[in-house]
């Protein structure tokens, strides 16, 4: 059948559904392709992704949503990174910032020069060489200076925001661009007997919705790709033990909110704390095999500062992903495709990267085998790289104070991750693959932050003179600290941005030190 693709149906209207609808409707604005989205107000959304990474700016820019508008409508604050407390060991913390560390010294990569200094008696902390961290610690925020090649140009930023407000913003955007929204629950999924493709959906009110192509944004239920098409789920719970989460917002009582997320490790998982403008998103991600829901709930209440707004409900999940995210004429985006705990704020990124890849590979008719293969190849790579990065946090712990951490410290990890750790340990080599999320600075942050030091700093660093190098590092460190102390407070930049109407000073979204693979 050579029928041209004319209609797309998105099932599910959470963040994944409306991000997909917004991107497709923008892309196919002047085409004859119809897009409809089915959602039910009776079904709640998980509302993933209160914390983001810098790629979200690229997504908004692609849609033409101005940054000030986005901040105003989603109660957003700026984010410069994530602070990890108690991960490497108890009472120890480090930050994974958005940006790179220091500046290369001639042909020597900065982190190798720094490692050389440390291996020769130097005392500087790697984390003193990040402008993001320096600003974050003082609750300051300024845009990177993109006009120069100086140290204050070498960082990026993202947002903390209200994901449900973002979905509302995108819903309006999509509907303005012609997306038809249908209220209803799916009762039955019909498949073409011969091809096995999904042909139509029958809703609870008995209305029938047919389309050429379906996008499954039905969340954990995975109604289309999982239940109907039977794609198997690949569980990664042998490496990622957490399987439950409780979210509980509180009132933000700080006049100047923190421009960074906190992740504090606890006995059987970790707490998050995400400061939005008027509230703080809090939660406990834990393993139900190592603690009870009650204990997790109570310890979260102990952890939260400020007035708690509402009760938390327990969400269960299995870390992992569908073996394939594109099966027959259906692509899964968001939780229906897979779930990785929000430790590195990657949920929205995984939605975004699937959308971008789909836009690149959207079929024109019903012969799409090669497109499907390429899509699944790309999405597998993204999931597995992020999976390895998250496992790294658990594996590199020195903690043995609970059974949970003993297991994590001693578990066997995927070969791909073991290889990265071995290479770094041997000669400070970091393989960033040239694609996918997380480049050198990210791997470095977690490895060094959790106590892994290389035995050797590589050949190029050997030519550096220790005294001269240490003096230079001291100067660089002082410069970064001084520069950061002159930047405006976070709340001032935030207020200024909201007032600003032309946003000339906002750096382009491509200004990201994370790779954009799509």
């Amino acid at each position, binding site marked *: 059948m050579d029928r041209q693709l004319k209609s797309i149906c998105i099932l599910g209207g959470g963040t994944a559904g409306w991000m997909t609808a917004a991107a497709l409707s923008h892309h196919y604005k002047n085409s*004859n392709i119809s897009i409809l989205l089915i959602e039910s107000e009776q079904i709640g959304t998980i509302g993933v992704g209160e914390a983001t990474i810098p790629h979200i700016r690229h997504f908004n820019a692609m849609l033409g949503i101005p940054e000030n508008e986005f901040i105003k409508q989603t109660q957003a604050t700026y984010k410069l990174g994530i602070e990890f407390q108690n991960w490497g060991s108890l009472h120890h913390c480090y930050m994974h910032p958005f940006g790179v560390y220091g500046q290369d010294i001639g042909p020597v990569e900065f982190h190798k020069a720094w490692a050389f200094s440390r291996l020769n008696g130097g005392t500087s902390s790697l984390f003193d060489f990040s402008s993001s961290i320096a600003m974050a610690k003082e609750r300051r925020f300024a845009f990177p200076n993109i006009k120069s090649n100086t140290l204050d140009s070498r960082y990026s930023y993202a947002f903390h925001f209200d994901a449900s407000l973002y979905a509302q913003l995108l819903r309006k955007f999509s509907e303005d661009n012609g997306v038809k929204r249908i209220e209803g629950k799916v009762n039955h999924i019909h498949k073409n007997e011969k091809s096995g493709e999904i042909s139509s959906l029958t809703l609870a009110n008995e209305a029938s919705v047919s389309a050429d192509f379906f996008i499954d944004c039905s969340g954990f239920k995975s109604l289309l790709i999982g239940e109907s098409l039977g794609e198997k789920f690949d569980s990664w719970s042998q490496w990622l033990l957490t399987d439950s989460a409780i979210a509980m917002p509180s009132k933000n009582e700080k006049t100047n909110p923190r421009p960074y997320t906190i992740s504090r490790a606890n006995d059987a998982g970790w707490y998050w704390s995400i400061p939005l403008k008027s509230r703080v998103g809090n939660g406990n991600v834990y393993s139900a095999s190592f603690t009870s829901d009650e204990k997790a709930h109570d310890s979260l209440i102990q952890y939260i500062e400020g007035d708690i707004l509402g009760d938390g409900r327990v969400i269960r999940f299995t870390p992992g992903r569908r073996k394939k995210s594109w099966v027959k004429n259906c692509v899964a985006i968001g939780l229906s495709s897979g779930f990785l705990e929000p430790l590195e704020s990657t949920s929205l990124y995984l939605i975004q990267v699937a959308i971008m890849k789909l836009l*690149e590979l959207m079929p024109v008719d019903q012969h799409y085998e090669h*497109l499907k293969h390429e899509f699944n190849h790309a999405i597998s790579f993204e999931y597995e790289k992020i999976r390895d990065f998250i496992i790294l946090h658990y594996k590199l712990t020195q903690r043995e104070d609970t059974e949970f951490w003993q297991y994590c410290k001693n578990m066997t990890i995927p070969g791909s991750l073991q290889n990265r750790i071995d290479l770094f340990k*041997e000669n400070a080599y970091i393989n960033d693959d040239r694609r996918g999320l997380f480049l050198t600075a990210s791997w470095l942050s977690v490895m060094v932050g959790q106590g892994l030091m290389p035995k050797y700093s590589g050949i190029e660093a050997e030519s550096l003179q220790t005294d001269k190098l240490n003096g230079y590092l001291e100067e660089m460190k002082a410069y970064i600290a001084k520069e950061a102390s002159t930047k405006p407070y976070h709340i001032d930049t935030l207020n200024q941005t909201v007032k600003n109407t032309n946003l000339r000073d906002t750096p382009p979204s491509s200004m990201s030190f994370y790779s954009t693979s*799509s």
Partner: protein
Amino acid sequence: MTPDINMTKNIAIIGSGIPLFLTALYIERTTRGLAYNINIYETTGASSNNHYSAQKFSLSPDVRNFHKYLEFSENDFFSKVKPGFSLGQTYFGWTKKPYHLSFSNKSFQLLGQEIHTVFQHLTNNKQDLTFDQLCIGGHLSQLSRFTPPSAHKNSLFHVINYGYSVSEDRYLDYLKEKLLHINTTSSHLTYQTSTDDFDTLSKDRDLVIDVRTECVDVQKDQNDGQLYRHNLCVDIDLNMASSKIIRSDGNLIKLVSTDTETGIALYNKKATLSKNDLHLLAAEAPELELEGAIFNKILNSEQTQKITSNETSLDVWNDNIINLKRLNGLSTGLYYDRFWLLRLALIELKKHWPNNARTPSIADHYNAIMSEYAEELDFIDHLHFHNNSSENTQLKTLIATHSRGGALIELYQEEGRLPQVALRSMDGDKIFSLLQALAINNKKTSHYKFNIDKNALIKELFTISESFKTAALKAPTIKTYKQQLKSKSTEQSL
């Protein structure tokens, strides 16, 4: 750093010809000022440089960064090696029409899309517009003009990329002179010629780098189970802005810059080289005829499959021996030059440099990366050999034997798409250039804009192409540029 007893301090580099000197210079530069002991042994015999005396070849653009790292000044290089500039390569006899592949980037956007996506949309409706005409480098090549890349990001000339074409003997002499100069001023390096066997020379070293080039003896190579290819390179000085690669009678002939009468005569005959022409060339360089025949034989031999189907077993690094010899000759020079893989191997070696060469994790990772590069190179080289027949067996074999490359070809052929991040060594738009040039068509268009008027789009693309041409005409001719460079060089030396 706390040195341990296994620290890589005593290094032997054993080999001959250009691979030896490139390796020796790179390792010397990398270890300069450090307490390393480097012994370089130039082996004599089959690999002596006399064998190459008539060959000329092109160097891919990445060589400029490599030279920069070695601290070669371009003026000095220019005055001693007398290279030609190569903005790309023109291929004759490979498809119905000759085609040109520019080294310059084409990345600009039109209608919010990458230009190769827009171009793809036109499928077979492009009239006489070629993808290379949407590139400033393509116009410069066609007009035999040259200008180096502009530092200004908004300039049309900013995207220019170029390599060189060089005479093998002059390049070899240049590299050797550089090394000998270092040898006289440096105490951590010794250089000597030697006929001793490999085991004697490499004994008790922390690290041994083997770049012997005996691979020119094909019989011997077949015995050691490795594949080496050879191309026939001659040299024509017609102030060409790109190399010319001619396929004739199953032989590959690469024309770069020369001043031989035969070369000029051959150039004028374009793609109609016959066996007689090969005899003429052979008269100037007796080895060439043999090598041309060997190239053909090897390309079609079963051994070509061996490399392509054995993705992770290149095993360049084993224990404390890095066998770069295995990389020599893997490239036909059809797209990347013959030493491209060697340069990459050295750059990767610096990144992977071990505290102890016998660290398996480092060696395994290095081998995996080099295998990936080698497979990509093999894929890109073999792509040129597809034919447009209905069976198209070469292309089918290529798709079957190269997992990633094959998937990309199928994706392009069947769906008209190529992702921008495609291979480790080549982005989607470069692969697109190659596929366009090779007239491998896509069946479908990407439908990024449904309401686009194709005629208006073609008109727009022609306008862009014309503006590139107008800009290219402002650049000096190759001849004038060379003269300018020469006078600048003379002024500086005065």
